[in-house]
């Protein structure tokens, strides 16, 4: 992040302290209203439209929207904006298709987590679906939590003007400890309320700053002229790409939206909404938040390209513009908005990771602690433990954990989004198909991601096909050892391994190898869910 000028450090630090104080106060208020397990994991299904709507959107975007999205248009001009329709189409599917069906379904069958939705929808006598889904959620979320805590440390350090390793360590400790404390005390309610506060801060920054900057530049005409003078390709939707490179880029950017229905920290917000009326109000709120934030971020990147042509790193454009254009108090609020975008995601992912351990594994898979007060205590302790683990990883910077982050968004999206959509469609899939879909989604994601840029991970990509087969063998051996697998489950594992290896071959020989991995992984997972279900007996006599 761009360093703050020495004179403004005190003011910015004051704004930061106030911001952290507000988060702690919200956590304390939420803790006073949290009395049991369902309260902790799902706020007692009592969220209103604003907290459910903004929380669902703010928690899904992370620091990517204030850093990465801004950097896209800074580097690529208007063609860098393709992520916006991609994400907004994902929002459309989530709020108009998923939310109105998921809320009543989860209330009727008592689902508390995404894993619950899947296992209760198709039945899971041997806990195959629960263990698989929980493992995927946990691995992806732990990687995410650690990476976001690292980003928190860096953001705090530079916002307070503290350089070097000591600044980073202090930043991690301040940011991560505060958010872990808030989440641990107030659970889902604290996360939703802090998300609402932080989501509004992010939206305010991403609406106000670009409009002010465009006005300072001399209007939209001056912006277009400025971009055209730098490079005419900045004013085109293709950005100079042609043929398969163009289509791979556009389809991949639009495909980002495919992941939204599979994000556990997003769809649990819909499950926690008070009633159907709140869901209908939430639709408008979520869509307008998305429109404002995605286009605001894009506009900041475009303006910064003209106003700050010497800026080395486009991802720093928001901060650099704020420090250049506005009063230190407002710049402090902009910095708080950047950190808000990160922390709103950290808290949501921390809670999902903790729920995967305390609810999905300890309470449901092992059948322990059905008592409501013990469930609350278990939830709080697990959040604290997962938060501490994330802090330790961020402090020691264990590289392996960050590797998981490469696959986290598309892995979760491909493993769960087709299943959530199929679960709500009410036909065509049984539990063996669901099992195959989760394995395929993860397998194709990893292989395709490595294959998009084999030069970046040559050894990993070369080994990917036989590691996939080895992993399938290990899953089969585990299933046999625990006597959990029906013959149809073995077929599901074989189908997933086959599709993963096929995608390894395809990504090397297909013209659109730059295609974002979520698109092929989503399609493969949806296809295998339907195909395996069609050829295997439906356990309950009901294929949907």
């Amino acid at each position, binding site marked *: 992040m761009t360093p703050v000028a020495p004179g403004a450090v005190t003011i910015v630090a004051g704004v930061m302290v106030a911001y952290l104080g507000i988060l702690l106060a919200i956590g304390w208020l939420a803790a006073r209203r949290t009395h049991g397990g369902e309260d902790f994991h799902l706020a007692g299904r009592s969220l209103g439209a604003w907290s459910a709507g903004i929380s669902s959107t703010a928690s899904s975007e992370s620091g990517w929207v204030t850093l990465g999205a801004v950097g896209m248009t800074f580097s690529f001009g*208007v*063609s860098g*904006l*393709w992520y*916006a*329709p991609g994400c*907004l189409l994902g929002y*459309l599917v989530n709020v*108009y298709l998923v939310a109105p069906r998921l809320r009543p379904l989860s209330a009727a069958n008592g689902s508390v987590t995404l894993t619950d939705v899947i296992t209760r929808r198709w039945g899971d006598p041997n806990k195959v679906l629960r263990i698989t889904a929980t493992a995927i959620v946990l691995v992806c979320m732990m990687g995410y939590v650690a990476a976001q805590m690292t980003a928190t440390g860096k953001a705090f350090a530079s916002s307070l003007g503290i350089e070097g390793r000591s600044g980073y360590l202090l930043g991690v400790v301040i940011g991560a400890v505060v958010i872990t404390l808030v989440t641990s005390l107030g659970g889902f309610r604290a996360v939703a309320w802090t998300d609402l506060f932080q989501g509004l801060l992010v939206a305010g920054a991403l609406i106000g700053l670009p409009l002010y900057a465009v006005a300072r530049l001399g209007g939209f005409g001056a912006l*277009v*002229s400025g971009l*055209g003078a730098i490079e*005419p390709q900045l*004013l*085109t*939707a*293709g950005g100079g790409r042609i043929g398969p490179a163009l289509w791979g880029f556009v389809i991949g950017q639009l495909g980002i939206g495919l992941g939204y229905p599979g994000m556990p920290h997003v769809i649990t917000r819909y499950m926690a909404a008070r009633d159907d009326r709140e869901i*209908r109000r939430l*639709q*408008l709120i979520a*869509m*307008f938040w998305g*429109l404002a934030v995605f*286009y605001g971020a894009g506009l900041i990147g475009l303006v910064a390209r003209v106003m700050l042509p010497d800026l080395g790193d486009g991802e720093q454009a928001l901060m650099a513009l704020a420090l250049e254009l506005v009063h230190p108090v407002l710049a402090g609020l902009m910095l708080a908005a950047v950190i808000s975008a990160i922390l709103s995601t950290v808290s949501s992912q921390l809670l999902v990771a903790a729920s995967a351990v305390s609810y999905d594994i300890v309470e449901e898979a092992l059948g322990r602690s059905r008592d409501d007060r013990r469930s609350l205590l278990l939830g709080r302790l697990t959040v604290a433990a997962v938060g501490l683990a994330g802090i330790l990883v961020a402090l020691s910077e264990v590289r392996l954990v960050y590797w998981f982050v490469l696959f986290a968004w598309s892995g979760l999206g491909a493993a769960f989004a087709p299943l959530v959509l199929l679960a709500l469609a009410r036909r065509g899939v049984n539990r063996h198909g669901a099992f195959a879909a989760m394995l395929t989604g993860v397998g194709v994601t990893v292989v395709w991601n490595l294959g998009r840029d084999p030069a970046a991970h040559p050894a990993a990509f070369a080994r990917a096909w036989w590691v996939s087969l080895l992993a399938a063998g290990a899953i089969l051996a585990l299933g046999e050892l625990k006597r959990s697998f029906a013959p149809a489950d073995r077929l599901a594992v074989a189908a997933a391994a086959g599709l993963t290896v096929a995608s390894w071959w395809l990504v090397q020989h297909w013209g659109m190898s730059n295609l974002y991995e979520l698109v092929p992984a989503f399609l493969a997972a949806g296809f295998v869910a339907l195909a395996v279900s069609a050829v295997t007996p439906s356990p309950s006599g009901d294929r949907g």
Partner: protein
Amino acid sequence: MPEPGLSLGAHLLLWVFPLLLATAVVLESLRGGRRRETER
């Protein structure tokens, strides 16, 4: 030489798409509201 302007695709991406989407979302919200009024 004429000054370069936004291409057609850039116009669609930059402001036509968000404007259409915002209009559709508002209209859907109004339609839903009216439908619920009639149901009552």
